[in-house]
């Protein structure tokens, strides 16, 4: 998923400033804790030594934070039952606390040994700080896990929102694309011209039929649909009106044939995917050929997939103009709706071109 660079940078900056703030806060609180334990054990406080020690320990802690977050995100913890996860977290917290407490004690002892002529024995140093450190380390562990949960949840919501917005915008783009094709001189003007010719030739019934078809096609295109899916049946209905309009225009030159397996009709497919493909077939299969051309649409179940093929016997792939906008958009939409489970490809079929669409079978409008 692409994020825009500006956004990325600000997130980065926020992370670093948060880390710095956390580091400062932890340093200060550790220094205070050390000072307290120092005061209890020794009766004196050594500010420079303790603050340096606090900073070193804070660094150690913060270095551990990503490890804790990674453990918390691990598949073992996210997939298992809540109670089990809690137990694992408790165990991990204890281990972490012990390890850190030990580490801190070693650091303190080493520093102590370096600074004092008569260093305290390790056992004393360890004992003196054990209780506080165990507690502090456990609390820190809990804090890291909690903040990891919080941050992850928020970004997950954001990701979902972004995806939804993207799909919405792609639906709009697809609709615009279909509208562009239909509103283009190509479709709308040719239809108007057909109607005006029919009126001129006093074929008023045919003219009214053509207007009705044009109305039906425009109505479905201009209608607001929030649902990105429609049944194959309803998509074919609109397509039928569209094809008949084109047949009025081309007369004998356009032949079209449907071979739709009945069990595919109620399946849900992304709205407005067929029309750009058929439009392409007409442009390349009928318009650019002098003789009669044929367009065939075939749909059938193919194992776990719905296979739709749009076949034309026109000029073929090599002579096609680079006019991939509609197809590109369709391909992008399929990718976003289905990932790699759907495909759209064009291939030569001898003379003409076949557009082959494969979609995962979707029996209901909602995700299964």
């Amino acid at each position, binding site marked *: 998923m692409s994020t825009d660079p500006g956004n990325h940078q600000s997130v980065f900056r926020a992370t670093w400033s948060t880390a710095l703030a956390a580091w400062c806060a932890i340093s200060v609180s550790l220094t205070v804790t050390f000072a307290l334990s120092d005061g209890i054990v020794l009766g004196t406080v050594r500010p420079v030594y303790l603050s340096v020690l606090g900073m070193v320990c804070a660094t150690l802690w913060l270095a551990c934070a990503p490890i804790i977050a990674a453990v918390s995100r691990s598949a073992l913890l996210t997939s298992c039952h809540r109670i089990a996860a809690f137990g694992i977290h408790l165990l991990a917290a204890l281990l972490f606390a012990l390890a850190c407490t030990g580490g801190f004690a070693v650091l303190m002892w080493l520093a102590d040994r370096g600074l004092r002529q008569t260093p305290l024995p390790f056992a004393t140093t360890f004992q003196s700080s054990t209780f506080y450190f165990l507690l502090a380390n456990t609390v820190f562990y809990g804090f890291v896990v909690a903040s990891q949960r919080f941050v992850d949840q928020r970004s997950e919501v954001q990701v979902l929102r972004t995806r939804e917005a993207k799909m919405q915008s792609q639906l709009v783009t697809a609709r615009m694309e279909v509208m562009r094709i239909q509103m283009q*001189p*190509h479709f709308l*003007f*040719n239809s*108007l*011209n*057909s*109607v*005006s*010719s*029919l009126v*001129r*030739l006093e074929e008023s019934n045919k003219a009214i039929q053509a207007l009705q078809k044009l109305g039906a096609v425009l109505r479905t295109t201009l209608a607001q649909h929030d649902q990105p899916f429609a049944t194959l049946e309803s998509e074919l209905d609109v397509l039928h009106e569209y094809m008949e309009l084109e047949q*009025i*225009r*081309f*007369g*004998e*030159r356009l032949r079209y044939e449907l071979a739709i397996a009945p069990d595919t009709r109620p399946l849900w497919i992304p709205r407005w995917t067929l029309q750009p493909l058929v439009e392409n077939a007409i442009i390349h299969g009928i*318009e*650019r*050929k*002098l003789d009669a051309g044929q367009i065939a649409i075939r749909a059938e179940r193919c194992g776990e997939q719905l296979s739709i093929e749009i076949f034309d016997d026109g000029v073929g792939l090599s002579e096609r103009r680079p006019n991939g906008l509609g197809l590109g958009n369709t391909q992008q939409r399929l990718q976003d709706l289905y990932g790699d489970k759907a495909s759209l490809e064009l291939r030569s079929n001898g003379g003409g071109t076949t557009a082959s669409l494969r979609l995962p079978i979707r029996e209901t409008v909602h995700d299964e």
Partner: protein
Amino acid sequence: MTNDIHCLIVDDEPLARQSVEHLLSRAAGFAVTLSTGDSRQALTVAQSGVADLIFLDIRMPELDGITFLKQLNEHTLAKDGRPYVVLVTAFDQFALQAFDYEALDYLVKPFSNERFHETLQRARRRLQNRDCPDGRLVRRIDPNTPVIEFKTRGGPMSLQPAEITWIESSGHYVTVYGPQRSHLSRARISEIEQQLQSSGFVRVHRGALVNLAHITRCEACAVHGHQLVLRDGSIVPVSRRRWSQVRDAVARQATNKHRNV
């Protein structure tokens, strides 16, 4: 008729061709020589010089309209020898190119009957006025061929006087009885009479104007005294007041015919 303007219709859509054919059938002096969706065939015909006027679509398979125009211009270098080309298209972006190739007109589909009629008038004017030195393939349309125009419910139309059998008046409207069918037109018979005076028409009563060439015989009639039987079988009474005038005109017409034969 040899003085007709010979037209080619080149469009890959049958309905569009029929539309132009229909409009041309309503215009006097235009004859469709070829109507085809095959632009290569049309180019061969156009280059052979039999066409005066070409209605050309732009977006067509194999040979598009602009290329057609280019090749036609290259082939018939003498400017005066070219047929006139009217581009008929659903797209307006080729108008400048059409201008470059000296197209006579540029019709954007769908066009109105009136607009098409203007195109025909322009074509007729050009064809009548063009220079036409001897030895060239090109013909000039006789400028003295009169054409009479009517406004009908189906748009403007035109007829040559010779094609009209008679005209019947009913208030603000006239019915023009043409070669195949009659046309109702909003006009006054007196205005038409003025236009047709020199073309061999005679007013036989207040509401009828008859083409002398279409009269087959005169009969006696109990009500009006006399009536005319026309070539298409219709019977038109002659008013008593105008009988002598009509009789003279018919006699003159007969003499002229004899003289011509």
